[in-house]
């Protein structure tokens, strides 16, 4: 294995000709084996499954587009799909609204302080996702911290049900969970703006606000958009959060897919729904990366 690695990694100088012409092929085979067998093959199979059907608990391996037809014609799935997209878009917008000022604040700090704060913002990324959902739920619940705080301040006189086991709760939880994902790309794009550009703007007579809106915001747009697409993709693929805090009314697309592999036991239909999810994700990623390539870049 190890000598294979060495063969693959470094260019053989002319003085050390390859012992055999087979070596590159062997190296390629070794490098490709696992990704193809455990990533590409399952994904391809998955795509194939979406064209099968199920009959009395057995999968029928005859190609059909019935699953897709069902998705687009059934009165249940399409509305939930759109609602989920809208929900995740709202999460993305909220995350950016919170993350932008934080990222901007980070760029105003210098040296060590900046990176310590950045690390503190990113630490929650590696914290257990399940635990974070649980923690937020303990705040949102009917008897949770938020309700008790609101009661204590006298803003409401009985526990509010606005954010208990419904889509609002999903929205709030996902936002809190995903803010750090939005901070990083925005911070990176803000950090890449040369200070000279802001100086040049002020030099040409712009006020701080004008510099912010005319220089900083447009130049951070690629980062902001990739932050949005990042958050959107993470939110739309999540089925744990809606399940934990969404209750009966907080039904999302991810939950429907998951249920096809559990209670509903219709794998081909679940696969078809997942293919649609994948399509949405690909579109979101594309949109997020678009601006970067079409506009002038900072050298």
């Amino acid at each position, binding site marked *: 294995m190890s000598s294979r690695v060495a063969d693959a990694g470094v260019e053989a100088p002319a003085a050390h000709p390859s012992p055999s012409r087979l070596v590159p092929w062997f190296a390629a085979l070794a490098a490709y084996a696992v990704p193809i067998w455990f990533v590409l093959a399952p994904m391809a199979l998955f795509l194939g499954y979406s064209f099968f059907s199920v009959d009395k608990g057995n999968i029928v391996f005859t190609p059909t587009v019935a699953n897709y037809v069902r998705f687009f014609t059934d009165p249940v799935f399409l509305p939930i799909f759109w609602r989920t997209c809208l929900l995740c878009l709202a999460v993305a917008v909220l995350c950016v609204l919170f993350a932008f000022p934080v990222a901007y604040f980070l760029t105003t700090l210098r040296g060590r302080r900046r990176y310590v704060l950045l690390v503190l913002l990113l630490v929650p990324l590696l914290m257990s996702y399940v635990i974070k959902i649980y923690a937020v739920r303990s705040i949102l619940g009917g008897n949770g911290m938020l309700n008790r705080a609101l009661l204590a301040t006298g803003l409401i006189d009985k526990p509010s049900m606005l954010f208990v086991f419904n889509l609002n709760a999903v929205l709030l939880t996902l936002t809190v969970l995903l803010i750090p994902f939005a901070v990083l790309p925005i911070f990176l794009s803000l950090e890449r703006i040369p200070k000279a550009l802001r100086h040049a*703007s002020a030099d040409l007579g712009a006020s701080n606000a004008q510099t912010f809106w005319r220089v900083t915001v447009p130049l951070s747009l690629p980062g902001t958009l990739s932050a949005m697409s990042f958050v959107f993709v993470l939110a739309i693929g999540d089925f744990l959060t809606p399940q934990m805090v969404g209750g009966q009314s907080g039904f999302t697309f991810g939950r429907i897919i998951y249920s096809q592999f559990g209670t509903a036991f219709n794998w081909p239909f679940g696969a078809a729904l997942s293919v649609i999810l994948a399509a949405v994700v690909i579109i979101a990623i594309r949109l997020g990366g678009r601006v970067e390539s079409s506009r002038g870049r900072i050298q």
Partner: protein
Amino acid sequence: MNEAGVLLKLRSVSKSYGATAILHDIDLDVRDGEFITILGPSGSGKTTILRLIGGFTKPSGGEILLDGRDIAAMPINQRPFNTVFQDYALFPHLTVEGNVGYGLAVRGTPRAEIAKRVADALELVQLGPLGKRFPAQLSGGQRQRVALARAIICRPRLILLDEPLAALDVELRRHMQSFLKSIQTEIRTTFLFVTHDQEEAIAMADRICVMNGGRIQQIGSPHEVYYRPSCEFVAKFFGENNLIPGTLGPTDGKTRSIDTAAGRVICAVDGQPDMAAAPEGSPAFAVCRPEAVTIGDDAAGENRFPVSIGQVAFAGASTMATATALDDPGLSLKARMPSRPGGASLRPGDTVTFVVPASTCRLVPA
């Protein structure tokens, strides 16, 4: 209190970062309409002067006076100055037109007027057809012109140029030098140009301010700083020079003698009251340019140095002879003469006389 013709005055301006002093006690007048160059090696504080005037940093001490008023606390965006940045600092998300019109747009100028003035400015810098391009699509020289157009469009009273030609290759740099100079003549705006390139400074400036170690060494016309240096640093900074150490002798007001190991040398002191007044016996250098040296016994001139030729170097248009003074083997002298198709008549080892007229010889304090 404002003297006629002076736009900006720096009075005992200093700048330090913590314990590190970058600028000491800078006094500088920028005259209305002139092309002034701040010249110095890297770390001499030249860019700091520009940044202080532009408002990008605040002075630690002293005053920067515009129309007699101290502008040290004036925000960048209210100063009637515009800057051409070293790396141009063009806004990558705006087109050439967007960049050039930026200063007008932030002042709320009507669109029609912006369009007209942008077109005029682009015409002036000969970039007329490139208005719709983005900076990333331009060459170095074109970006340079956009930066210039962007700086002049608001009709500032002073344009600050921070080594704007440093990133260009030699040929383009020569071209841009004369281009910048012609633009400056055309729009009659004061240019303050920072560079580390002596030839560039001499080629463009009306006046040169030579900096070293955070202090001004000399301010004068290119001709003055070249032929009449005020100190050893300036004497050595512009190309080849001969410096002959000695002690000052008596003066008649127009010339002064200096006693060196190679004999007594007579130097002109007109226009140099400091050197004329310095006490006798104080150490100094006699300074003369290699091109002021003529070779041969029959040449006319007060100062004559018998020398032994060491090296003869052909450098295209001219040929440089390096020689050792017979009276002082520690003293090396250089003479530059026009090259001849047949080759130099001098050979290493030849014994000849270097002749320097007193009028081309100057004194600087040691």
